């Protein structure tokens, strides 16, 4: 697949997110069930993203690991997939589909503004632990998105106290807890890969430090929920949204702002 074809497919996918968002809002306003249409739309968008990722992979003969464009493109795919699976398994997460589609649309527009030029993957990146590390990271971010989107919706609905709020609240904490497990595995797999690639398992580079801070923040929130049981529920939901913001900054900001060796020893 040529670069032009890949970009066209990506534009179609981003447009697809916008269409799904619009349909979601319209259907919910008219009181009709939105999920069948939304999930079908997201599945079509994911198919387009699969074509874009696979085409790039085959053309460049390397996985989408290194550049901001690679990371955005692969995250559009993985976030959509993880959300669809999570919402299929936990119906309470479906209510936040418009927020998820909106976020993915913004991420898609961002991916269209950055350079799509590929950078050769360093030899040290050719390691199975990198695959596990990245997969766990994408699962973490996808689950965190599902939790944060649902928490955002709950924060917006606080005054109306909808009848399904209890299920949605439980879904938020389930998604965040699973995200915590995935994050923990991501740290371990990353340490094993780093030891193999650079001869050290931890070096406090910017990405490692901020990833550890994100893990600590989730641990803190899970602890706070047990420690301060009378804490207003909105505090917890706000914290979930803040943690997702921190995770986005960590994964999509820190690696591309710092000159840390995590970018790869050439």
């Amino acid at each position, binding site marked *: 697949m040529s670069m032009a074809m890949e970009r066209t497919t990506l534009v179609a996918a981003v447009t697809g997110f916008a269409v799904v968002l619009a349909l979601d809002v319209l259907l919910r306003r008219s009181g009709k069930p939105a999920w069948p249409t939304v999930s079908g739309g997201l599945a079509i968008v994911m198919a387009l993203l699969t074509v874009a990722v696979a085409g790039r992979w085959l053309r460049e003969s390397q996985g989408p690991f290194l550049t901001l464009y690679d990371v955005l493109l692969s995250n559009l795919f993985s976030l959509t997939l993880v959300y669809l699976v999570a919402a299929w398994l936990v119906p309470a997460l479906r209510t936040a589909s418009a927020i998820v589609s909106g976020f993915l649309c913004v991420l898609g527009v961002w991916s269209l503004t950055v350079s799509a030029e590929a950078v050769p993957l360093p030899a040290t990146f050719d390691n199975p632990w990198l695959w596990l590390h990245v997969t766990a990271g994408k699962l973490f971010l996808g689950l965190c998105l599902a939790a944060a989107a649902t928490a955002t919706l709950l924060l917006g609905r606080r005054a109306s106290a909808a009848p399904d709020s209890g299920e949605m609240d439980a879904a938020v904490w389930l998604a965040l807890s699973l995200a915590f497990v995935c994050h923990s595995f991501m740290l371990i797999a990353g340490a094993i890969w780093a030891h193999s690639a650079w001869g050290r398992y931890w070096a406090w580079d910017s990405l490692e430090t901020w990833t550890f801070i994100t893990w600590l923040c989730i641990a803190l929130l899970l602890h706070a929920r047990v420690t*301060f049981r009378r804490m207003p529920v909105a505090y917890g939901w706000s914290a979930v949204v803040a943690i997702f913001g921190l995770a986005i900054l960590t994964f999509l900001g820190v690696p591309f702002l710092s000159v840390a060796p995590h970018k790869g020893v050439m």
Partner: protein
Amino acid sequence: MTLLLKSVASLKLTFVGLVLLIANAFAVSQWPGAAIPWLVLPLSVLALNLLAALLVRHAFRQQAALLLFHVGLLVLLMLVAAGVLLRFDASVEVVEGTAFDAATVTPRGTGWLHSDKLDEVQFVQGPLEVRYLSGLRRDTTHSRVFLTRPDGSEIERDIGDRQGFSSNGYRFMATFNKGYSVLVQWRDLSGRETIGAVNLPSFPEFEWKQSNEWITPAGESLTLELKLADRIPEDRPWLLRSRDVDYEVGIVGSGQFEATAGPGQSVAVAGGEITIVDLRLWMGYRIDYDPLLPWLLTAAFLALAALGVHMAQKFAAPRAADSAVAAGGEQAA
């Protein structure tokens, strides 16, 4: 005593410890050089808090998976601390055809309790090859080493970007750092000969400044500059190796002395004569020693598995788990 333990085991102290740890991890991100001192206090608070909780919080002990996860974290913390005390981190350059010499190692970090056994490591650096794809993209590294085992037998290993070797607990990893080394013979005025190697800067990273200073045994400072006949081809694959390289060595000394010598040629300089014997490659290795690494990995995976089981139990029976934790929290408070 029990009252003190219950106070130390408080979930509120866990909260404070975690907030402190986050603040200090943030400080580490701003001042990375000071990582360990910044983290000792909050980690110590959390370790004490957890130890006390293990002793006095019965509800905590009733949740085996949650308990195992926290014990795993505690063990991880202790193993990391012990690893810091025992560790050794260094780098070394070894020239093709020469034996590893512990005296040439540059330490980067040595734990207080590290017992140096590096001089017992014996290996000879064999031929080295680094493949490049077109556009000077580094591909595979093949560094052959001949390792002498403790029983005196020799084993040959092919070291690459992901494949290191271990000896006496020291792990040697090939780095991207490698370059040419000029093998020179020095003959003094009385006819006594010695051979040495002058390592040049990393290649091809510093292709533009392939020179280094060398002090002769007579005390004369010379600058040796490698002059390669061919430039690196950037439009096709290329192999970095020491065989079949067409080169000369420029020799610059004091008093505007300048000469050029090819392989096998000699140049008279102050106090003796220098002969260019051969062109070799040197390989840069990173050396690390952490005998607790396998235990660290085991503890990490055990803790992770326990966390997974705890979450599965928690969400399979959310109400039961929540009430048990709440009871524990109230007891601790």
